[in-house]
C-alpha cells in the first residue's frame, strides 16, 4: 500500500459531484456490474424461502406449501448428515493446515530462485495439476492407488511396502488421500498471488538488508513475509470462511462403498439426498445453514486477522 499523501491531487476530487457528472460515461460502466449483482446475488436471496417450504420440481416459489422448520428438524435429527459434517471439518482442517502453508513456502522458494529456465519450469509444472478436472485426476488416483498402481510399485521398489495394498478402500487413509491430492492439485496455483505480491516489494529493502549483513533466511523472515502478510491474511479469511464448502467433484470421484463413512462430505450428502431425489427444500435448508455458519467464520477470522495485522483492515 502506498501512503496517502502520494495519491495525486486530482484523484482526491473524485468524490465531488461535479467530477462524478463529468465522467458519467466512465461511471456508467459500473451499471452492468450492479445489475448483475442485483439479479444474480440479491434477488436469489428471496429463493431461500423454499428452505421453509416443501418445494418440488413442478412448484413455483409461491405455490409450494409452507412447512416451517421441518426441513431443519430433519437435518438436525439425521446422523448421516452429522457424519458428513465431521468428515467435512476434518478434511477442511487438514487442507488448511497443509494446503495453506505450503503455497507460501513454495512461493518463497520460487521467489528466491534466480530468473531463468529452471524457475519457469518449476512454476509451470507446479501449476499443471490445477488445470486437470477431478474426473481426470480421480481416474489417475484410482489407478495410482490400486494394488498394481504407481504408489505400490514405487513403495515396493524402495522396500517400503512389502504387501501391495489398495489405499483408496482403506477408510482410515481417506482423509489424507483427499487432503494430499487436493494440495497437490492446488499448491502450485496458490503461489501466484503470493508471487505477484512479492514482486511489488521494493528491492531497495533487500539491498539495504544485504549491506547490513542480513542472511538469506533473515531477509525472508523480515522482508518477504511481512511484505505478503496482508495477502496471507486475506487468503486466511477466504479459506476459513469456506471451511464447510468441501470439494464435491473430488468426493464424488474418490468415494467408494468402503470409504463412504470417512468420505461423505456435506456437499455430496446434500447432492445425494437433496438434488438427485429432487428434494430442493432440503438442499436449500442445508445451504442456508452452511451460509450462516460461514458468515460467522468470516467475521470472526477477519477480527483475528485484523488483530494480527496491527489493527489494519484487510477486507
Amino acid at each position: 500500500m502506498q501512503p496517502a499523501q502520494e495519491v495525486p491531487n486530482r484523484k482526491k476530487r473524485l468524490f465531488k459531484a461535479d467530477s462524478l457528472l463529468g465522467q458519467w460515461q466512465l461511471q456508467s460502466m459500473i451499471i452492468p456490474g450492479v445489475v448483475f449483482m442485483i439479479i444474480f446475488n440479491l434477488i436469489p436471496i428471496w429463493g431461500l424461502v423454499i428452505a421453509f417450504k416443501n418445494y418440488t420440481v413442478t412448484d413455483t416459489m409461491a405455490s409450494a406449501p409452507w412447512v416451517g422448520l421441518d426441513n431443519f428438524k430433519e437435518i438436525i435429527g439425521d446422523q448421516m448428515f452429522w457424519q458428513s459434517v465431521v468428515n467435512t471439518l476434518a478434511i477442511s482442517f487438514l487442507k488448511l493446515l497443509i494446503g495453506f502453508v505450503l503455497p507460501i513456502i513454495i512461493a518463497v522458494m520460487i521467489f528466491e530462485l534466480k530468473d531463468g529456465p529452471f524457475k519457469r519450469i518449476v512454476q509451470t509444472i507446479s501449476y499443471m495439476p490445477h488445470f486437470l478436472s477431478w474426473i481426470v485426476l480421480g481416474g489417475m488416483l484410482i489407478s495410482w492407488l490400486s494394488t498394481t498402481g504407481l504408489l505400490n510399485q514405487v513403495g515396493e521398489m524402495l522396500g517400503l511396502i512389502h504387501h501391495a495394498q489398495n489405499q483408496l478402500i482403506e477408510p482410515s487413509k481417506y482423509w489424507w488421500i483427499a487432503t494430499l491430492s487436493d494440495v497437490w492439485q492446488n499448491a502450485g496455483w496458490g503461489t501466484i498471488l503470493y508471487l505477484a505480491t512479492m514482486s511489488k516489494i521494493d528491492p531497495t529493502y533487500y539491498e539495504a538488508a544485504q549491506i547490513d549483513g542480513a542472511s538469506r533466511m533473515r531477509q525472508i523472515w523480515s522482508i518477504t513475509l511481512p511484505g505478503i502478510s496482508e495477502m496471507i491474511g486475506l487468503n486466511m479469511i477466504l479459506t476459513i470462511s469456506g471451511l464447510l464448502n468441501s470439494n464435491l467433484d473430488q468426493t464424488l470421484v474418490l468415494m467408494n462403498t468402503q470409504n463412504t463413512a470417512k468420505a461423505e462430505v456435506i456437499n455430496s450428502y446434500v447432492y445425494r439426498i437433496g438434488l438427485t431425489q429432487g428434494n430442493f427444500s432440503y438442499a436449500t435448508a442445508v445451504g442456508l445453514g452452511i451460509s450462516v455458519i460461514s458468515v460467522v467464520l468470516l467475521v470472526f477470522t477477519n477480527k483475528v486477522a485484523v488483530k494480527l495485522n496491527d489493527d489494519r483492515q484487510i477486507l
Partner: protein
Amino acid sequence: MMKKGKYLAVALAGMLAIGGLTACGSKGSAGSTGPKESIADRYTPKKDTPAWKLDKKKKVTNLTWYLNADWWVNTDAFGKDMITKKLEKDLNVKIKFVTGDNTKLNTYFASGDMPDIITIDDMTSSTAKKAASWAWSLNDLSKKYDPYFLAHAAKKMTLDWYKLKDGKSYGYPNFSNTQDDFDKGYVNPTTAFVVRNDVYKAIGEPSMKTPEEFLAALKKIHEKFPDLLGFGFNSVIEGASAISYSLQDYLGVPVKTKSGAYYDRNLDPDYLKWVQTINTAYRRGYLSDDTFSDDTNGFTDKLKAGKYATIFMDGTTSQASALQSFIDANKGKKYVAIDGPQSTMGRTITLRNSGVSGWMNSYITKKAKDPAKVMQLFTYLTSKQGMIQMQFGIKNKTYTVNSDGKLAIKPEVTALQNSNPTKYTNTYNLGSFYLFANDRTLANGAANSNAKSVQQFIDWGKGKVKSNYLVENVAPDQGTQEAKNYSNINTTWNTSIVSMIRAKNDKAYDAAMAAYKKAKKQYDYAAIQKIMNQKMKQNIKKLGLKE
C-alpha cells in the same frame, strides 16, 4: 472517435442492464378438460389408420422436445440421418431438442413457458405424479386426434401401469416390458456368470454351481493363471447392486415372504451362504481389492484386457463392445456364459430385465401448440412401423427381410459403423433414437446384430428371464422421511456387503453384517416395509397379478 467510443460503452451498459431485467415469466393455467384445438378442417380420425397419414396440414409444425437428461447427446444428429429425416418428412414437423436437469425442468414449470413434449426418467417422481396438472392425457388425445394409438400402437399393460388417480394415462415409456413380452420370450437377460473360455478349458471345465465347486475351480485358476483375477464383478463404488440385487435374483431368492410381505433379501441365508463363499475366495487371494475401488471405466478396461478369469456380470449388453474388443485382440479367446453359482436350497435361477415402468417417459404438455400433431408423433414412434424404422432404418436401404421373415441390417451399414462412426451417425444412426423403443420382438428379429459378443449370454439365459412386477416401484415416495431413511439403509448395506466380502476374519464379517442390522433399526425399517407392503398390494390390484 473517442466520443463515439464513450456512447458505445454507455449503450452497451444499458443494453446489458435491460437484457438482464427482462427475464420474467407468466403463470400457466391449469384445466382438466381435453385440448380445444380442432382438426375438423384437417382430417377425420380413423381407428385403423394412423392420423399422420391423414393429416393435410401444409405448414411445417415446429416442436420443442425437452429431455430431462443432460447426458443425452443425440440432439444434433436428429433430422440429419436418413431415419429421423424420414420421420420429420412423414409428419411434416421440425423437432428441436432441449436437454437439462431438474433445475431446468423447474424453470419451465415456474415460468409457464412449456415445451411441446417433456421426457423425464422416473415415473415415481413428483413431476410424474402431478402429470395431470401439466400434461394432456394420452387417452383423451388419442380419442380426439388419433384413435390408432390406443387401438394398435400402445401396449395396454403399459398404459394401465401409467394410469394416475383419475384413471387416465399421461406418460408413455421406452423399454417397458409387459407380461406378454416375458411370456413370449421377447425379453433378453442382462445378467450372466461368464468365464474366459481358454482358462475354463485349461482347468478342465469343472462345474461351479456349489460353493465347494466354485472355490475349487477358483483355486485351480489361481494356480494355473496367477496373473489373472480369479473372480470379479461390475464396479461397486456407487452401489453394490451387482453382488446384492442381481446375485440374489440369480440365486432365485424370492421377493416376498410366505405371507406376502416384502422380503429383505440381503439377509437371506441362501444368499449369505454365497457371500461367505465369495469372502472365502477373497481371503484366499482370488479377488483383488481393486475390484472394490474401480469405477466403471476401470472394470471395462480390465474386461477388454481379459484380466478376469470369471465374472458375475450385470448389464451384459452394455459391455458388448468391451467384450468384442477382447475377442478381436485375442484370437479364439472369449467370455462364455456358464451355469454359475446356484441356490444351495434348490431354488431356480431367475434373471431380470426392466419391468413395465420402462425407463424414460414422455408427456405431451398442455402448452403443446398443436397437440394433434404431437399425438401423431407419439403414434408414429410407438407403432410397429416406427419401431422398425428407428431400429433398422428403411427397407432395402438399410435392412432386408430374410426368407424366414427376420430383419437383417445390410452389411455395408454395419461396416460403415465400424469404419467411420461419424459418417455412420450422420447417415444412418440406427437405434440411437430410443425414446420410444419398446418392441423386443424386433430386437430378436435381427438376423445380425451389433452385439455378437453377448449373443451366447443371451442364448444361455433364454427361458430364465422372469417378470418382477410385484415389487416394481415399491420404494417409499421421493421426498418423504422414509425415502431418505431407505437411502441411508441402502448406503449402509453397500458398505456392509463389500466389507463382508473383504472381511479378513469372522469377527470382521459379523461386524459388517451387524452394522447393516443396526442401520435397519436406527432408520426404522419397519415403517419402510409397511409402505412397501402397501405398494405391493396396490401393484397386485393395478396389474391384476395372481400372486
